[in-house]
């Protein structure tokens, strides 16, 4: 292969590999028919290309390997981007807490603890931060604990019109038992 043919192969490999730097030897192993010198030449040409483009990415030699990374001057934008959190993505603990609240609302923290068997305070905080749940007044029992329920944002993010549209156990059994 020519250097120009090797370049996109190496680029694709480095792009699709996780964050750790890839040693030259491992790249060469993927292309056993090619002379090592040619592979090295292609790698260096690729690096020069990225420098010449002066884009958002660079190909760096680091810790004995090669790795793509974003250029330091754009880190502020990436940080800003990562701070946005408009998604309904949830940890499993938060998802389960949300599920208990959705199906048992209005429900208090001690009641959620009773069902889940583990403390759910931090999950509840996450759900409040994401505006998926809201406080629904206090329960008239000893200690007057706060009750929680799902929000309008919850309906929007889960794509349903009202709580009656939540699937119930029969909907689930319809799927499993046939």
């Amino acid at each position: 292969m020519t250097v120009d043919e090797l370049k996109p192969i190496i680029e694709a490999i480095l792009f699709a590999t996780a964050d750790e730097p890839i040693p030259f030897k491992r790249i060469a192993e993927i292309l056993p028919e090619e002379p090592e010198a040619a592979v090295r030449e292609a790698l260096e040409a690729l690096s020069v290309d990225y420098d010449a483009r002066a884009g958002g990415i660079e190909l760096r030699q680091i810790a004995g390997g090669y790795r793509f990374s974003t250029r330091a001057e754009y880190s502020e934008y990436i940080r800003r981007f990562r701070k946005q959190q408009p998604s309904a993505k949830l940890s499993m603990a938060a998802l389960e807490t949300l599920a208990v609240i959705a199906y048992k609302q209005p429900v208090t923290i001690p009641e959620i603890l009773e069902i889940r068997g583990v403390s759910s305070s931090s999950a509840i905080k996450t759900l409040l931060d994401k505006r998926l749940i809201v406080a629904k007044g206090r329960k008239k029992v000893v200690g007057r604990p706060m009750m929680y329920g799902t929000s309008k944002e919850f309906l929007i993010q889960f794509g349903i019109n009202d709580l009656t549209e939540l699937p119930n156990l029969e909907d689930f059994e319809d799927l499993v038992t046939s």
Partner: protein
Amino acid sequence: MSERKEPIDTAADTAVAEAPPEGGRGDYRVHLDAFDGPLDLLLYLIRKEEVSIYDIPIARITQQYLEYLRLMEELDIAVAGEFLVMAATLIHIKTKMLLPRDPFAEAEGEEIDDPRQELVDRLLEHQRYRTAADFLYQRRILEGEVFTRPVPEDEKSNAEVSAGVFDLLTAFRDAMLRAQALAEIEIARDEVTLSQKLDEVRALLELNPTINVRDLFERAGSRRELVITFLAVLELVKELKVRIHQSEAFGEIEMTRRDPEPESLEATSDDEPSMNEQNGANPNE
């Protein structure tokens, strides 16, 4: 018939459609298991007989269809209800085709309904979806050749899922099942006997000279334990080990240890009396 579990393979599909069933019995089973519903079987028969989907020789196809059902039964392949419904439909169409056409309707130039029309429409629609499925299959294969940057390991360990409502239901069901399992363990643990309960209350009295009776009842994990607790309290009263008192009407009911032994009376005399005086102000024994 159960749904096919093997991965779709277009080559294999053609094999299903074209391989003559005149092979060994094993071949029959392979082919018959492969039919994903009655429409699939009908389309196969139409292709095998090389007849037009728009002009199905209904008597011939019906006969073939019924033969296949018989074969499936013979081979112990469970014939799903849908196959039988289709058999009935085919026979119904066949009967209608045999009836003489209404000459008056024909004379008046009215459109004659072909009894096969509805079936043909369904077969065509089914075919289109099969082709659409093939299209999706190709798209997914193509997309499998494309790679993105993998999520770094440290983000993976704290992975978040984008959940839908069925994920909520599953999570809720899991939590409830877990809670139920926990409750069962607790009930099993709480199957106490009266003598165990007596020991337990005596031990409590060793630590606290005065016990709130309602607290004691609320600790009961089951109705049965509640009854046993009540019996244990009665037993202690009968044995003159405790005194029951209520400081005001509808107030808290308390149970105080009686210490008849002189040495223990001595030992506790420093801290006990004040308590006894307080509680004894309005004895309600």
